[in-house]
């Protein structure tokens, strides 16, 4: 095709203002290019590269990724051809972020944005999101629901390299951000035209890797608006697992309580008086503990009033002599004071001895009381294999610890995220 235009080439020329070298890497897509030496913005389509604007920069800003660097993003090579800093001012404070313009002659343009060590991989959207206005607007697009984060006026404060539009320092656009971590949706409105773009949070390490940059990326500061929560993503999963384990635990508990023998194997009534000149200790008749190795519950019911008693118990296997020794204190006090009636303790005590093998057993009992006490009447009941839910309750509580902890961490992260938004908790708004 002789009518076809010449093949595109990288173009180099001298800045008409200062004579410094200028390169155009974006072929014919470039509309304006900045002289890195004198900060003149030049008309790339003009044969003489007419100066469109000259801007004063308070300081030279060196892009973290130098212009002309090539990297690989999602499998495709891209070259950094443009760089701009954009600034929003809130309550008199400037917040600036960097935008890198990336070019591939086949795949077109994409952007990398950087704010305090947080990066986004951004592409222009060619699908119109559906915006629902309200107290908290929501935008839906590509199957995602994005929540409004903030609306601000962003102005271009610094430019380097080249752009497929007529770039102008000082130009202001109205920016709206919507987030659905790790993605974010942004609209930029100038005059009557709105452009939508979709960003995805990426780490500095990923950027460094993609462009094979030396050193390490700047550490991210704080929580960024679409930064994926290290806790949020699998919070649901954590709770689902927890619920599954709780269900399992409940089934086990139900199984054990249904099939527990819960059998009364011994019952006796006694009395004890400390002043009686008698040997306090005695042994009971032999009773049989049947079934598999399981627990034994010993309950002591007394008629104590404003007194205490201590019971030394030993559950002894009459065949092997194996003994389970334990002591129980029972005390019951009551009265009335300026706050009204009060009670302390109780007349009953229950002890559970876990894992007692089956066999023939008897109890050795030795009560103690204050020497001045009147004495006590008491009943001893021994039950074999009682359903016990306390272990299951402890297990359930332990099981709840990780998801509860996880949920708190997640809530803290979300709070940090939304603190930077238009919806920060009403703390006067001035201490942003």
């Amino acid at each position: 095709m002789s009518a076809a235009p010449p093949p595109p080439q990288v173009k180099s020329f001298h800045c008409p203002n200062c004579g410094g070298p200028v390169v155009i890497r974006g072929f014919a897509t470039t509309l304006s290019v900045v002289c890195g030496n004198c900060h003149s913005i030049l008309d790339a389509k003009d044969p003489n590269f007419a100066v469109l604007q000259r801007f004063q920069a308070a300081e030279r800003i060196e892009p973290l990724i130098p212009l002309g660097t090539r990297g690989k993003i999602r499998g495709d090579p891209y070259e950094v051809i443009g760089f701009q800093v954009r600034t929003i001012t809130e309550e008199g404070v400037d917040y600036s972020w960097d935008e890198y313009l990336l070019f591939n002659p086949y795949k077109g343009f994409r952007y990398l944005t950087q704010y305090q060590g947080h990066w986004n991989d951004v592409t222009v959207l060619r699908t119109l999101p559906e915006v629902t206005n309200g107290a908290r607007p929501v935008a839906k697009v590509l199957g995602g629901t994005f929540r409004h984060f903030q609306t601000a006026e962003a102005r271009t404060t610094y430019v380097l390299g080249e752009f497929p539009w007529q770039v102008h320092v000082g130009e202001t656009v109205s920016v709206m951000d919507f987030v659905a971590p790790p993605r974010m949706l942004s609209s930029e409105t100038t005059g009557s035209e709105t452009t939508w773009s979709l960003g995805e949070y990426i780490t500095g390490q990923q950027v460094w890797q993609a462009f094979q940059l030396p050193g390490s990326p700047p550490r991210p500061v704080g929580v960024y608006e679409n930064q994926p929560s290290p806790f949020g993503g699998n919070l649901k999963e954590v709770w689902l697992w927890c619920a599954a384990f709780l269900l399992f635990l409940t089934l086990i508990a139900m199984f054990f309580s249904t099939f527990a023998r819960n059998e009364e194997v011994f019952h006796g009534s006694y009395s004890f008086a400390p002043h009686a000149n008698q040997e306090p200790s005695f042994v009971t008749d032999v009773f049989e503990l049947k079934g598999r190795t399981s627990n034994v519950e010993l309950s002591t019911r007394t008629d104590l009033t404003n007194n205490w008693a201590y019971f030394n118990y030993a559950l002894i296997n009459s065949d092997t002599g194996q003994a389970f020794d334990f002591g129980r204190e029972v005390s019951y006090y009551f009265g009335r004071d300026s706050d009204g009636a009060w009670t302390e303790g109780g007349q009953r005590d229950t002890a559970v001895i876990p894992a007692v093998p089956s066999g023939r057993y008897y109890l050795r009992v030795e009560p103690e009381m204050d020497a001045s006490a009147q004495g006590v009447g008491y009943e001893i009941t021994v039950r074999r294999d009682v359903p016990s839910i306390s272990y299951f309750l402890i297990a359930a509580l332990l099981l709840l610890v990780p998801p509860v902890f996880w949920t708190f961490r997640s809530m803290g992260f979300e709070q940090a995220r939304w603190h930077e938004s238009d919806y920060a908790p009403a703390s006067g708004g001035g201490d942003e």
Partner: protein
Amino acid sequence: MSPTANCPNCGAPIRFRWSSAVQTVCEFCHSILVRRDVNLERVGQVADLPADSSPIQVATEGVYRNRAFQIVGRILYEYEQGGWNEWHAVFSDGASGWLSDAQAEYGVSFAAPMTGLPAAASVARGQQYGFNGVLYEVTCLTRAHYRGVEGELPFEYWNKDEVLFADLEAHDARFATLDYSDPQPLLFLGEMVEFDNLRLKNLRQFEGW
């Protein structure tokens, strides 16, 4: 395969890639030739096309929705913020469509004959129109002028002044374009496509890429 003729200006053979072409450009003398019955009439001359960066060229082949197509021509438009190409794509079944390339954003569209389209004077940003049951919103009005043509086109297009285009977008990848180059507005319906999905062959080469 394709009908051949000779350029009425320079006598060079004119080979058509698409039998229904209404207009073509002589590769040798750049004459714009329009078919009149069996004859070719020279209606003008193409100025050299400006440098552009489209990776597509005449004879590029690709696939759209499982239908193979070949690029046989194009219209290059320019406006104050840049330019774009409408590449004329001819499908294996003879259908004719357009592959647009605006700064390496690609869309495939087809003429959608329809009456009762909004007049140029009444179309405005933000308006919504339903075409074939899909709701589109006017997102952008562009006044562009024809900057050049290349190859074969399904209509005569060689002497147009500034043209108004209305771009409409749907809530998915679909778009519509209203073309006010004729008194009777033309509607094109299409969708944005991923470069890789077009499986393009015979592309232009970029030095260093």
